[in-house]
């Protein structure tokens, strides 16, 4: 494989300065099935933390017979260490709006909403100006599609698509029982496509360059490239677009500070990859979560403090609805503290491990289900640091 330096990818942020929504205009000349098939051929998967095939999602929504449908851009980016969506919205918003409009065109939705997290409220004015320009173009293209901005109230769990919809309906952002999924019954019970900011931008890119070109990058299971938010003990913090399928080792070689102990991939709800597994772990959908956050920890860092911080985060941000998550997150946090203090024996860690696994199988949404990811990966790879 070529070294990283030779494969600098730049699909998301390039070719923008003269954007007059040409890609959108072109796409509107194609039959919707054509576009959906292209996205499926390109193997585009959601760029949030879930990774559901985008083409399939749009297909399901298209199939539903309903006079009203919605397209929602999930800009609730709240996963620890993730900031790519903010940058996309700042630098290339028209790609996102195009992606949304193409989705509306394909599925029959006439209304789009950008669910913007409250912490990004400073972007609202800029985005509104972009929307004014967007609507002018839309009128010229004769597409019945309008986008508005909805400001979130501030909560991590609002990033879960059904919780997001609840929030938009003026309720607590608590995940719904599924099925039915939002594509069947979403906002106000109507078919709704919820996709991440980067997903819409990448959909636009695929419409621009074609599936074949996109497939030249990545692996069979993880085609293409994506943005990574890199922070922590790194010499190059920031947003970097990398080819999927790259090994962590290659990433660490370029971005690490020569002292990298572990990398947390996918934020607090992701996996912690220790040094010994760098070479054999690839970034992609083959088992890791790919919100795209990568936090580097060097040898001066305490993995106990890292795990402790993640558990504190979950215990606070859990919506509190379901038993395993509401209580389980608290118990995991108190548990590792007690073992550290010596109030509980090292064997108690097995109890906590079983708890985390049971949370994975029985929690109501991805938040509770993902706590086991960092817990078990940090525990198994840094046992001494957690216990003593």
């Amino acid at each position, binding site marked *: 494989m070529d070294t990283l330096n030779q494969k600098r990818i730049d699909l998301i942020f390039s070719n923008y300065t003269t954007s007059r929504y040409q890609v959108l205009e072109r796409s509107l000349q194609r039959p919707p099935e054509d576009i959906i098939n292209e996205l499926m051929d390109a193997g585009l998967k959601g760029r949030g933390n879930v990774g559901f095939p985008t083409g399939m999602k749009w297909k399901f929504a298209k199939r539903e017979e309903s006079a009203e449908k919605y397209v929602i851009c999930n800009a609730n980016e709240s996963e620890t260490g993730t900031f790519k969506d903010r940058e996309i919205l700042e630098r290339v918003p028209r790609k996102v709006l195009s992606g949304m409009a193409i989705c509306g065109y394909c599925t029959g939705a006439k209304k789009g909403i950008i669910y913007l997290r409250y912490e990004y409220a400073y972007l609202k004015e800029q985005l509104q100006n972009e929307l004014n320009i967007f609507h002018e173009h839309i009128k010229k293209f004769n597409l019945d599609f309008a986008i508005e901005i909805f400001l979130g109230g501030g909560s991590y769990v609002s990033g879960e698509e059904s919780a997001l919809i609840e929030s938009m309906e003026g309720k607590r952002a608590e995940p719904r029982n599924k099925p039915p999924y939002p594509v069947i019954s979403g906002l106000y019970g109507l078919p709704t496509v919820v996709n991440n900011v980067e997903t819409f931008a990448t959909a636009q890119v695929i419409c621009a360059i074609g599936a074949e070109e996109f497939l030249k990058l990545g692996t069979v299971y993880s085609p293409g490239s994506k943005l990574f938010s890199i922070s922590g003990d790194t010499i190059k913090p920031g947003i970097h677009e990398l080819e999927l399928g790259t090994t962590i080792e290659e990433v660490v070689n370029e971005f690490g500070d020569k002292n990298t102990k572990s990398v947390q991939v996918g934020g607090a709800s992701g996996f912690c990859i220790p040094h010994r597994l760098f070479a054999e772990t690839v970034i992609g959908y083959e088992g890791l979560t790919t919100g795209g956050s990568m936090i580097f920890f060097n040898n001066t860092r305490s993995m106990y403090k890292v795990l402790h911080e993640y558990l504190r985060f979950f215990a606070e941000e859990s*919506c509190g609805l379901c038993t395993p998550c509401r*209580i*389980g997150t608290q118990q995991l946090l108190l548990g590792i503290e007690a073992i550290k203090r010596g109030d509980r024996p090292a064997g108690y860690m097995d109890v906590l491990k079983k708890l985390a696994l049971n949370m994975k199988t*029985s929690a109501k949404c991805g938040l509770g*289900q993902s706590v086991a990811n960092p817990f078990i990966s940090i525990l198994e790879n840094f046992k001494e640091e957690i216990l003593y």
Partner: protein
Amino acid sequence: MEKTLINLTINNIPVSVQKGSTILDAAHKINMHIPTLCYHPDLKVAGNCRVCVVEVAGTKELITACSTAVTEGMIVTTNSYKVRTARKTIVELLLSEHNADCTKCYRNGNCELQWLASEYRIGDHVYHDLVKEEEKQPDSTSLCIIKDDSKCVRCQRCVRTCSDLQDVGTFSVINKGKKQKVSTFYGKPLKDVFCIDCGQCTSRCPTAALTEKPLYEEVWDALADTGKHVVIATTPAVRVAIGEELGFEYNKHSDSKIIAALRLLGFDSVVDSGYFHDIYIVELCTEFMLKMKQDNENAAKTILPYITSCSPGWVEFVSTKCPEIKPLLSQCKSPRLIFGSLIKTYYADKKALNPKDIITVSVTPCTAAKNESTQSMTGIADVDFSITTRELVRMIRQSGIDIQRLDAEDYEPLMCEHSGASVLTEVSGGTTEAVIRTLSELVTGNELDPKMLKIMPLRSEHGIKETVLTFSEVRTGWEFLKDQEIRFAAVNGSRHAMDFFKQLKENQKHYHFAEVMICQGGCIGGGGQPIPVSAELIKARASILYSLDEICGQQKAHENARLNAIYREFLTKTELKENQKILYY
């Protein structure tokens, strides 16, 4: 109506259910038990507690049986290792968030968390105790309901009951994560928020997080006080339901055995509540007739519809939500207060007792009744203690009484008779039927047409029931009613009470008489009735009351011979003003 059948297997047992059914429905059909906690047959599905998780082939994670619709060919396993470990973990987690002082707890022996824990024999504190010290102090500021956050399992049944079923909205879930809990507006104590004390939450709470405020210890104290003469009255709704918790089915001997049980408990006198319900019906009827006469004489003023006020939760509802209709409410005291008031006056007089030495205990299905206190003209409380069916059960259990084995006994002879109409007052629509029976005879002067003894529209399951009456023959002085439509409404549940009020705002003159009971199904569904509760159980209780009415020798309130005695001897002899205070506010 979707008639498609879906075929699936649960633990390898095939079952077919209608499309749209949940896995839980399918399991019920084949008597396969899946434990639940946040699920309740009267309420919308939540899917929060995760106790009912099951394994479905092809799905990675476990799913909740209560909220997942069946699909063709679904393969469900309810007892795999994965399911059992998840369920056990969930119960252990719930216990870590619970103040498990079972031996002191009001719901010991009838607590759903206790039952779940005992299934897995969980007792050791596996996890850290999460109950905060301040939560162990329950909110006892309300006269009727106690809220104990340390026992809450966050099933949100109370929130769903109060908001969806009763449309009151006292409770809400607040905060998130580890701070999430069930609370009120700005966490204020119950006495400072809008709550109608209907207690529907207490009869649906799976634990002791919400209970009525028990007063039975005070009743025990009164019974032990040799200087006090304690008089008790239980209502029919109490007697037909009490067997649900004491383990017997109500039959024709139950009433008299319950009288015996009450005497064994130590009560000096057991009176027939039906006697007071009959007085209430007669007074209600005459007050209504007077109102109709006034309305006829002065059409400009709106004094109709005439609305009942015997449901204390309804009175609380009106006071906050729609005080403008307060002038329309009946001024007659509720049957409970009539009982208390007559015991302290008429009964005291007849028995040569000092009213100050009499304690009146009213057993009803009602939690709000604890808040219903008035004072008769002597400045003494009418009813000293209002206790619920559940509290009486506790007293009977504490005494080790087996009701089935007792010999039949009779009521206090002074107040021992009742009509079938009095029994009906505790079913929604029943007070209206009772009033119609007396009204018809008083207005027409003729004997009631037997067909009028069963007014089916008032026995339906609707929230607002209606019927219309017309009199072709009327007595002198009531000519204005001849051939006129008199429209009656019977409302149950506070959600329908709100709808009714909205109807009134649009067209106040539509109804002449309205009966409003704030509890689901009327008093038989009261907040103080045995737990568990369901629409089916309420229907069964109603059935018994209807049949008790049918077999009763006299079905009209005014036929009660003892009433004539009290009216002749006492109620019409005292000064009108005093009479007013005994029976009216």
